[in-house]
């Protein structure tokens, strides 16, 4: 592994080692670029991961202080935990389920397709599906996504069997074990899935793609990567020219260091990325870095979500095998006749007993609650995930008083559901329940959103400087050597799980940066 000097201003500094940052680091290293990858979390491994929901939660989750406000139910149920994402080398890709879907063509231009919608800050992406297709193909190959590149699908587990039986009876046509970045065959030096069912807990077998097991080791093999775990970036510095010059970070002992940089790429996930830009305000950039549009921290999206669990006379044992074992895509189109714009996916999801207790009906107690828990082994479950409306008033902002362990203002996550989100959730609950009813369910349990796992849009890309924070390559409009490299770039959310797109954008960004560097533009 490389070791660069703090004063070395030839390195590219990447903040965050998750889907965006970890991928970008590898792509740049493969091109010979010198990279310092700063990651706030510790370096775990397949060996240190545990098959235990709460222990794992304590091991990899981002648990630094955060607050929430607004009328969303998460704000009430999980006020101090608005998002369920990671602080560990590999970021939330250690946690993710692996569902890897391309955004649909029309979802890149929703302002054009959906028209003006009250309260929604819609905008077309500055790129099209066609622009992204070659990168999607590269990402799918890199991640070993099933049902692409000739890779067979995964076998469905019991939870999927229930979904499939119901979907088929209901007349849905698109239900299968989906496109998943989990090895159905040994591939790329990693084993195939042994159906542990602890995909959210780091996947001890290594079958699941993550930047921890795939991108970062490859980047290290180039000799170009200087990975520094437990390095929490507090501020991005700039010079008189306005260009960024480096970052200040706190190490494991809390000691602060300044790492110089040729360019800085921010990939801290959509809460930390704008927090860092806002916290880096200076005399020259009073509203925070790259914020001449005022859009840093705005338009926070988290996908329309909800879950349906159902109980049956016969056992299901839904926890056995892949957490996201299959998908129904029939509702992912845009059909305003349903009473909302945009679409949603239905994906199997299983929780272990400990998490089921925590999430089934947060705050509930008494006989009604325990009667549901008694059905645990006879339950099937699905997660509903759809496009939510970007709203300027949904924001990440710096808390006026609260500070974290490094003295940095904590982020406040403000969110209100848009009426379109609510209409879509109601429809999705109805259809999810119908799927299970068709499979013979005794009872359906409609479960409110979990803390946000898909955090998007807070530094969105836009064609015009005034509408967003960065361009189609994630380069900020205001500062040419400052890049946004994670899901914060999303102009709108689309119905699909976001990670494949984050990875594709990172590959594309690496090409762009390498070109800019060779042209000495940055």
């Amino acid at each position: 592994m490389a070791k660069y000097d703090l004063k070395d201003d030839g390195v590219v500094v990447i903040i965050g080692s998750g889907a965006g940052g970890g991928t970008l680091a590898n792509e740049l290293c493969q091109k010979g670029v010198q990279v310092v990858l700063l990651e706030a979390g510790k370096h775990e491994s397949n060996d240190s991961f545990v098959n235990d929901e709460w222990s794992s939660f304590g091991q990899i989750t981002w648990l630094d202080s955060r607050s929430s406000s607004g009328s969303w139910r998460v704000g009430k149920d999980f006020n101090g935990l608005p998002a369920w994402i990671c602080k560990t080398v590999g970021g939330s890709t250690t946690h993710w389920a692996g569902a890897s879907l391309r955004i649909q063509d029309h979802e890149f231009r929703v302002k054009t397709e959906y028209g003006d919608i009250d309260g929604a800050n819609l905008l077309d992406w500055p790129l099209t599906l066609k622009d992204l297709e070659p990168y999607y193909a590269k990402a799918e190959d890199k991640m070993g996504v099933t049902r692409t590149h000739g890779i067979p699908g995964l076998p469905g587990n019991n939870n999927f069997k229930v979904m499939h039986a119901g979907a088929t009876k209901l007349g849905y046509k698109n239900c299968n074990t989906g496109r998943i970045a989990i090895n159905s065959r040994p591939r790329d030096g990693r084993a195939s899935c042994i159906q542990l069912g602890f995909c959210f807990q780091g996947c001890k077998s290594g079958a699941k793609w993550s930047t921890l097991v795939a991108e970062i080791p490859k980047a290290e093999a180039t000799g170009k990567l200087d990975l520094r775990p437990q390095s929490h970036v507090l501020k991005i510095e700039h010079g008189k020219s306005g260009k960024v010059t480096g970052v200040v970070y706190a190490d494991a002992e809390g000691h602060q260091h300044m790492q110089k940089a040729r360019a800085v790429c921010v990939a801290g996930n959509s809460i930390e990325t704008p927090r860092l830009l806002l916290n880096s305000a200076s005399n020259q950039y009073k509203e925070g870095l790259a914020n001449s549009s005022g859009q840093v921290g705005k338009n926070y999206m988290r996908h329309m979500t909800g879950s349906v669990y159902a109980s049956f006379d016969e056992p299901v044992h839904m926890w056995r095998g892949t957490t996201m074992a299959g998908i129904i895509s029939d509702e992912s189109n845009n059909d305003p006749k349903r009473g909302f714009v945009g679409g949603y996916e239905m994906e199997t999801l299983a929780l272990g007993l400990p998490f089921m207790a925590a999430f089934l009906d947060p705050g509930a107690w008494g006989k009604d609650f325990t009667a549901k828990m008694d059905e645990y082994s006879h339950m099937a479950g699905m997660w509903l995930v759809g496009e939510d409306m970007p709203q300027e008033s949904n924001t990440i902002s710096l808390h006026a008083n609260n500070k974290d362990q490094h003295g940095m203002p904590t982020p406040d996550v403000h969110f209100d559901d848009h009426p379109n989100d609510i209409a879509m959730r109601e429809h999705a609950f109805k259809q999810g329940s119908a799927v299970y009813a068709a499979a013979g369910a005794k009872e359906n349990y409609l479960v409110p959103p979990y803390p946000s796992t898909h955090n998007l849009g807070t530094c969105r890309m836009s064609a015009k400087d005034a509408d967003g924070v960065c361009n189609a390559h994630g380069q900020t409009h205001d500062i040419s050597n400052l890049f946004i490299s994670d899901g914060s770039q999303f102009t709108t959310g689309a119905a699909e799980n976001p990670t494949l797109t984050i990875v594709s954008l990172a590959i594309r960004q690496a090409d762009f940066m390498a070109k800019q560097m060779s042209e000495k533009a940055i």
Partner: protein
Amino acid sequence: MLDLDLTRRNFLKTSGTVLIGTLASSSGVLSMLAPSQTWALELTKLDKPIGQSLLQATRHIFPHATLDDAVYAFVVKDLDVAAAGDDAVAKLLTDGVATLNAGAGGDWLAADNDKQFVVIEKMAGNEFFEKIRGTAVVSLYNNELAWAHFGYEGDAWKHGGYLTRGFNDLKWLPDPPADASPPAFSTS
């Protein structure tokens, strides 16, 4: 039924395990689930009557008729640890039990089940109630005894996953076709 200090002669002291006894040994799940004579909870901060009241309060908040007291005792254990670490928590719990007793005219534990419920229901949402509920929603369901009771199988890694142990053994619905759900990979 609510004696936290049951026959001590069978206890095996296991470090790190507050519920001590044959319960904590790994002699098979079912024997572990019939522990009523062979476990005890050692409290460090709260006294026994408080512990017993908290156990019964938890039974009202999360009633599972056939779930053994030993599992509920995990919640009391965690409340005791919290009380030992923070005097404010100790006071909250002690005062809360006093309120329960007052509501039942002196001895809440001695009241019948319905009466107990009426008293505790009135406290729903208050800080004392939420402390128990918030602790119990984790502790009650986060131990191997509870997992055995509810049928959850816990750690799959040590058994090599479910690939050959029933991940797709459901027989009461038709199997999906192979294009929707291809066969599993096998090396043979």
